[in-house]
């Protein structure tokens, strides 16, 4: 198993200043500049981490709350800075201690005993086993578990053995990969504040930073958590997130020097930023872009039709037009780093226009469908290319523009006929994919409403969950991947890149495999 580390494009040269001023406005600018702050400092030579400084990052999303159990994209940006989890993953998915210094899985695979390090929450309260117990209890409450519900579904309960030791019991024998994935995802929250209401407007974590001030929709300022367990980190005095509603405005702010970096910006800005900023492909395996068809709606209720339509998609063309040289095409939901990735599956689902045309003519009851086109990165562009690919084989895909909230409701109600959107990849445990409702083995699967997922898919998913030994896991993973391909209600397109643009002064950065900037190690080289 291998996960590629983040890749970086080194600036070639400082970009020339763009335009001369307009006379009248230039005069205004000169006067006002004199009233403003000092210009940017010259970067110092890179070397050992430097303490101090303020890092200002632009984000194109609005923060929902400070609840790490609500793992939506919006919150994901800052939770890593505010909360510590039980473990971290290296880029190649090897577990490393975070709050948990040791973990021992029982021989019968029915429990894990976790030892916590000495650490403190931002308000000075020490981290204890009771905080993990409270977190597990919340993850088991369907009303407030939020995104922790799926990943913790195999957990029965947690018990504090002593102040810093906790035993987590499972409902069934569980393999190590699934346990580690849960530990990676599990944020330790101060027990007394671990509920959605308390975390709506304040954080309660033990991460490297704590909240200094927050203006919803505008700005969030973080300062170092004095009780963070690593005395050397963080290096920065302050981190400021500025929230933008418009990517153009955010990138302009970066270019103007208002920001030191941008988080998850669209790749279409690469050309104008590449000479002046570090463009980083963070966590290349965090997400995969998928194309779905609804198997409960004609003509996709016929599996042969689904497979024929999938074969009409030229993934390479879609990928290159959206991400340029970044990313890789994939046959299914798994990235190349996944144990379930199988390149041979391209033989079944790879681009073959002739086979697609014959298959569509033979098996599709109708040759029209409607796809919601949303403003999400790459979706409109990708669907337009797929639309042309399908038109070439006699299938008419109509695109209907809508915003993200409308699309989400349509999808969640099982009323989307076709869709293109990314999915978060499972890490070590392939079966964790089913925590995503589009892959669920239960009645919640929004692509199989009223019909139920195919029996062979459910069986393959159960096998992947039940596998304990390496041989069993390997065999079950292959079976699970094959069942996904055989049923073809979705197909993989490409690995989706999380793009960060950082000024040269920002050093020491690294990313979790879940696409989050590890702010503890970041420092600024400018004085």
């Amino acid at each position, binding site marked *: 198993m291998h996960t590629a580390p983040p890749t970086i494009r080194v600036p070639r040269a400082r970009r020339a200043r*763009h335009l001369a001023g307009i006379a009248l406005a230039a005069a205004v600018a000169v006067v006002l500049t004199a009233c*403003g702050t000092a210009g940017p400092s010259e970067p110092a030579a890179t070397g050992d981490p430097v303490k101090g400084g303020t890092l200002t990052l632009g984000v194109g999303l609005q923060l929902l709350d400070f609840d790490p159990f609500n793992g939506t*994209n919006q919150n994901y940006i800052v939770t890593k800075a505010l909360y510590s989890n039980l473990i971290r993953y290296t880029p190649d998915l090897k577990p490393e201690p975070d709050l948990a210094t040791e973990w021992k899985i029982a021989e019968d695979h029915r429990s894990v005993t976790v030892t916590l390090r000495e650490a403190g929450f931002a308000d000075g309260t020490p981290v204890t086993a009771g905080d993990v117990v409270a977190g597990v209890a919340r993850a088991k409450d369907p009303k407030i578990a939020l995104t922790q519900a799926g990943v913790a579904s195999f957990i029965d309960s947690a018990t504090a053995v002593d102040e810093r030791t906790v035993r987590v019991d499972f409902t069934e024998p569980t393999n190590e990969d699934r346990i580690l994935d849960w530990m990676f995802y599990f944020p330790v929250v101060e027990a007394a504040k671990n509920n959605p209401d308390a975390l709506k407007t304040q954080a309660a974590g033990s991460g490297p930073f704590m909240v200094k001030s927050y203006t919803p929709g505008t700005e969030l300022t973080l300062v170092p958590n004095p009780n963070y367990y690593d005395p050397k980190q963080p290096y920065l005095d302050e981190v400021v997130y500025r929230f933008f*509603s418009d990517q153009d405005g955010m990138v302009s702010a970066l270019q103007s020097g208002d920001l030191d970096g941008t988080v998850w910006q669209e790749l279409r800005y690469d050309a104008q930023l590449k000479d002046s900023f570090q463009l980083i492909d963070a966590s290349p395996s965090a997400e995969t872009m998928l194309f779905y068809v609804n198997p409960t709606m004609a003509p996709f209720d016929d599996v042969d039709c689904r497979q024929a339509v999938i074969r009409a998609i030229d993934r390479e063309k879609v990928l290159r037009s959206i991400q340029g040289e970044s990313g890789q095409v994939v046959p299914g939901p798994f990235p190349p780093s996944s144990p379930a990735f199988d390149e041979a599956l391209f033989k079944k689902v790879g681009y073959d226009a002739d086979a697609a045309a014959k298959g569509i003519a033979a098996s599709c009851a109708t040759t029209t469908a409607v796809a919601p086109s949303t403003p999400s990165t790459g979706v409109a562009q990708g669907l337009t290319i797929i639309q042309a690919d399908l038109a070439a084989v006699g299938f008419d895909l109509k695109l209907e523009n809508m*915003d993200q909230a409308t699309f989400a409701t349509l999808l969640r109600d099982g009323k989307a006929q076709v869709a293109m959107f990314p999915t978060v990849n499972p890490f070590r445990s392939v079966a964790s994919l089913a925590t995503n409702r589009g892959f669920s083995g239960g009645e*919640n699967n929004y692509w199989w409403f009223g019909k139920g997922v195919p029996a062979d898919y459910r069986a393959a998913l159960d096998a992947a969950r039940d596998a304990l030994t390496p041989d069993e896991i390997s065999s079950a993973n292959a079976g699970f991947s094959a069942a996904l391909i055989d049923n073809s209600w979705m197909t993989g397109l490409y690995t989706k890149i999380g793009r960060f643009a950082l000024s040269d002064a920002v050093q020491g950065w690294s990313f979790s495999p879940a696409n989050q900037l590890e702010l503890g190690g970041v420092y600024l080289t400018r004085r």
Partner: protein
Amino acid sequence: MTGFLLRRLGQFLPVLALAAIAVWAVVYALPGDPTTVLGGLDATPEQIAAIRERLGLDQPVHLQFLTWLTHTLQGDLGTSSTSGFPVTQILAGAIPATAQLAVLAMLITVAVAIPLGMIAALAPRAAGGRIVKGWLSLSLATPPFWMGLLLVIAFSVGLRALPAASRFVPVWEDPAGALRNMILPALALGVYSGGVLARFVAASLSEVMESDYIRTARSKGASPTRVVVRHAMRNSLLPALTVGGLQLGSLLGGAVVIEVLFSYSGIGRLLFNAVAERDYAILQATIMFVVVVFLVINLVIDVLYAVLDPRIRLK
């Protein structure tokens, strides 16, 4: 005058009531709901039900409306479903930001419109008049967002002289900082609005300058400056006042595109985000705020009409 004001204020109530119902209906007609934003795509039916219950969306629509109305009349505008902060607190931050931007943009509008409108009306065939007319056509053909982009490219990205992302700095705390942060969005708004208003000033002034009473004033030996300033401008400003008032209303109601472009945290950007996130409480409050702003501005314009033209009586 007092009776007029009281009657007009009394007329506000049915308008506000109708506006409240219309706003409520429009907001609920929007496809999608806050649970998709708050719960994400993978929220289970139990979680969705819990969110709906927490937001009161599980209640019948008429009950939700009555609850909202009762709380609003008590000064409680509810809580933002997205951020969890009270709507009054959020509005209290956004309204001064937008008001400050609107005032500066309006100053630029007037500074552009009055002199240019006068030149276009008084010297239409001179070189200056032709240049001004050309400029007015250009400014009307340049939408504010485009002007904003050009200003950002020139002064933020190119010269690095002014911020591309404008913060709200209260002018009473730091006048220079406030001007530095607001000048680009205010210019983007003011240049366009100034063009619109200048057209009205020019057309109105041209018409007034042809009037009999202007000829009389000239024949009595009044200087050209006195004729224009004392006699013509006062009457020619009446139509411009209506347009200017509506422009001020639009600016106070939030210049959505410009506030989003400059990431300026005023009413416009608040409204934009609230639509995207289906934040009903914020949507209802901001739209009602805009309605009230327009009602008040219309009233002020009516009063100013009477001040500028004594022939108009407030009844």
